[in-house]
């Protein structure tokens, strides 16, 4: 089903990219956790009062006085949505479309492996890489909280947040992967694979503004992840299920098309 050789090669080839994104996340994680001041709530609340609309659009809502609330506001409103999304866009494009575009896909297809196997292996790389990114985020938040604010983090809720975020990113990466699978050049792969997720993200920002715009939330996949709801204890099963179904559909269609279509290499 998967090619271990190809998997190892891809993970090795993309370790640099992964490291860069881990750096970026680390920077934000430490900053946000550091900014938390237990008694006066978060530093965010002051900023949010200053520029309510801008902050609302960017997903920063008043976080309350808990550390998990502050983390949810500071990280899970934008950073942990944006950063892995950009990572998925780049990696998904590299894994299929870039090989087709450059012609090196010919070498992979000239080996006795079915196209489905090759595409599934590339998909696995994406799932594992995103998994590493989200797991790292979770662990980094736990560690930095333990150092700066020992005993104040609700770890259970943090894990729950990250489970949903992981599947959100798997679903979003499905868009990127599908785009990569159907494209002969990286230009097309990027315009679809980056375009749609970014539009979703912009719609999400508009929907965050509230009022009539709230209805826009039905037009974006990001609605399926709501940090405050999860912290408030809302059941995540339905949202995760929908995300998984979306992911299976997107990846399934991508791999199917890739296995059948003409590949001009």
């Amino acid at each position, binding site marked *: 089903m998967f090619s271990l050789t190809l998997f190892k090669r891809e993970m090795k080839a993309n370790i640099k990219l992964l490291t860069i994104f881990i750096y970026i996340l680390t920077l934000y994680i430490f900053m946000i956790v550091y900014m938390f001041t237990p008694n006066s709530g978060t530093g965010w609340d002051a900023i949010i009062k200053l520029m309510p609309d801008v902050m609302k659009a960017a997903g920063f809502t008043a976080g309350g006085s808990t550390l998990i609330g502050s983390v949810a506001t500071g990280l899970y409103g934008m950073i942990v949505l944006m950063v892995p999304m950009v990572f998925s866009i780049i990696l998904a494009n590299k894994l299929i479309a870039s090989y087709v575009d450059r012609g090196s896909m010919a070498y992979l297809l000239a080996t006795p492996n079915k*196209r489905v196997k090759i595409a599934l292996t590339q998909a696995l790389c994406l799932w594992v890489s995103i998994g590493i990114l989200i797991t790292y985020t979770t662990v980094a938040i736990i560690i930095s909280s333990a150092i700066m604010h020992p005993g104040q983090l609700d770890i259970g809720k943090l894990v729950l947040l990250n489970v949903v975020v992981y599947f959100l990113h798997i679903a979003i990466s499905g868009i990127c992967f599908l785009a990569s699978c159907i494209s002969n050049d990286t230009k097309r792969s990027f315009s679809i694979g980056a375009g749609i997720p970014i539009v979703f993200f912009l719609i999400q920002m508009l929907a965050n503004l509230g009022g009539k715009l709230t209805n826009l939330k039905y037009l974006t996949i990001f609605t399926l992840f709501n940090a405050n709801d999860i912290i408030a204890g809302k059941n995540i099963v339905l949202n995760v299920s929908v995300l998984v179904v979306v992911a299976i559909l997107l990846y399934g269609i991508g791999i199917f098309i890739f296995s059948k279509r003409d590949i001009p290499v």
Partner: protein
Amino acid sequence: MNVIEIKQLTKDYGNKKGVFDLDLSVKKGEVFGFLGPNGAGKTTTIRHLMGFIHPGIGECFINGLDCSKQSDIIQKSLGYLPGEIAFMDDLSGLQFIKFIAEMKGIKDFSLAEELIDMFKLDPSGKIKKMSKGMKQKIGIVCAFMHNPDILILDEPTSGLDPLMQNKFLELILSEKEKGKTIFMSSHNFEEIERTCDRTAIIKEGRLVDVEDMKILSQRKQKSYIITFLTQEMASSFSKEYGEVKGRQGNKVTVYVKGNIMPLIHTLDKYEITNLDVKIQTLEELFMHYYGGEKNV
């Protein structure tokens, strides 16, 4: 038995691009050449054989297996050298060869090492920094290293220096002796002439002719440019010999097919200052095949 079988293959890309109603078969143990100008449809045909693209109409078979549907099985006994070189730039040459070997499930790396030796390839550097010729050598190693029964080679000697081209032709001939079936496209007539049993000529996606190489090389004309001492001699020779293609001052051009003795006997009577031999080039031969149409 036919190892490669192309039946009424049609793939229309519009604008007269593609291949049209192509019928070809390559027998076991045969070296089959595939000649044609750029954009004639050589690579398109090869892509069909590799199962990269699927026929609009028609079918392709290798060893009786459908190239479109069973390419993963076909690849086990097939070596392929793409026309365009594109590897994974982040790897070194050796890493790439080893990676492809693993993807092909090769346990025995000795043949690969032999090939690396044979082509005097230093595969330790990063592929990104390699010259076209070095990359081509890596491609050749990847195509031959699992000792496949069938080889599909798209312009295999492009980028190689003359010495290495020679090495490559030796490799082809030794593979031919081992009974391998080889299908190779080329622009290089000499290369085809030295290795191939039969050659197909394709133009604008259509098969022009399939020729036995012996017959094809007989058709290859030689022209002699003879410089006489005086113009009078030149004109009198032209009258005597008859089959003269052109005369410019004291220079006469003569085409000879087959026996050269009559020409030599005739020349004996004249004083000659120079004799040039021009062997018909591939392009000139193409002109013949294309029946004088434009585009060579």
